[in-house]
């Protein structure tokens, strides 16, 4: 397997070419809007390709530290589909813990769980980059 250029580098290269070569050749209209959407999505894919498995692993560990062991979140495989299944299990445990904390009126516990969600959201923001309302208005 050729690991370099990395997937992130390849996707960013494709975006550069779309912006430099394809988009300027298109008239205003649906095709141009579609290319603008594609470039935004590809940039997000580049960030995910570089980090998503590590980020999901880190989050699973942080969730377990806060809510206790989640057996379904354990496993060795680093294939993306397997990591996604484990991440889903940890996320479900986090969501249940949020419900329980609010039901108990446990403010400090809510704060601990909220910080986990804010950490998750920081990754989402890196993936999203700059939000552009392509084709609107």
């Amino acid at each position, binding site marked *: 397997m050729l690991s370099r250029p990395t997937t992130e580098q390849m996707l960013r290269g494709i975006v550069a070419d779309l912006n430099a070569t394809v988009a300027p050749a298109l008239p205003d209209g649906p095709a141009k809007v579609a290319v603008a959407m594609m470039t935004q999505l590809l940039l997000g894919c580049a960030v995910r390709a570089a980090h998503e498995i590590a980020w999901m692993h880190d989050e699973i560990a942080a969730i377990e530290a806060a809510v206790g062991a989640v057996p379904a979140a354990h496993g060795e495989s680093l294939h993306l589909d397997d990591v996604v299944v484990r991440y889903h299990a940890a*996320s479900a445990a986090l969501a249940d813990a949020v419900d329980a904390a609010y039901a108990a009126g446990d403010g400090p516990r809510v704060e601990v*769980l909220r910080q986990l969600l804010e950490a998750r*959201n920081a990754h989402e923001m890196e993936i999203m980059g700059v939000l552009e309302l392509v*084709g609107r208005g």
Partner: protein
Amino acid sequence: MHNLDEMPARLAAFLAIEEPGWRDIEVTSYEVMTGGYSRLLAKAVVRHAEGEHVFVLRGDPPADKQLIHTDRQLEWEVLRAMQAAGVRVSTPRYFDPSGDRLGTKALVLDFCEATSLLPYLAGTTEHEHRVVAEELAATAAAFHRIPVEQLPASLARPTSWDDYIGARIGEWKATALAHVESLPVLRFVAAWLDAHRPPAVPLTLIHGDFQTTNLMRESDGTLVVLDWELAQIGDPREDLGYFKAIAQAAGPDLTGIDADAFCARYRELSGMTEAQMNPAVMAYFLILGVVGTVRQLIEGGAAFSRGENSALGTLFSLTNIQYGQMMWLQATRQLDQAFAAAQEA
């Protein structure tokens, strides 16, 4: 509807039935429009012996390309009700309820010559933004004030505010539970909203997608409200919170230039009390007010994951969910801090 070879003839045949008094109908121009993600749009120039018209056709995409699922019949009825109530909309002219004649279920509206509000705001000063903000409060209050009995019978009538808000909050949790993966941010939002319910108000018509990109400005300053596909009966503060939410990503936030003044103007026109409508309540609805769109976008993402949807717009719209999560978490934290400070005081 985007078949440029077929559509001029289809539209001419359609108009010949709708307008039997028009002679020698010719569609002299037919072009695809951008401007919305959810429906197909096209602009047509029609000439006949008695005159010339410019129309917008707004129809359903094919099933596997639909970002969200809404009802053109209901949108048609709401548009007609808005027109009858004097709310400024793109005038609804014709409707193909089966799609047999226009290729898909489609509305035919007058083309609106007004200026899109987003670029207008981008080219004007804060002073002008304050003027538009006042008009925005008046525009929202105008359709929020329409008596419910004057609205289409096909719009569902919630039994009470408590039941309605409970269901709206429940929609966050239900959306999270129905998704193809766990979404703990949505569960957090549901729990937070339930713990901080504002005072009740009468339920009214709400637009459901009230944002700058669905508004146009006429030369006299009047705002034209477009895209009524998500209209329903609900809490009117949802529209204002929704506007504020979208404006965080595509400013300026007209509701926030002077939030106290905006709320006061809206209260004056709507009859709400200060407890019912103030900047903190508007921030609460910044979160609650987007749930309908959030559900639709997340359902689109789930359909894409299952291979039931292949629309590029579906994927792109998920960036709104990413941004929204950041905004909801920030808003809940800021409001919690404000409530705590108020309690201490």
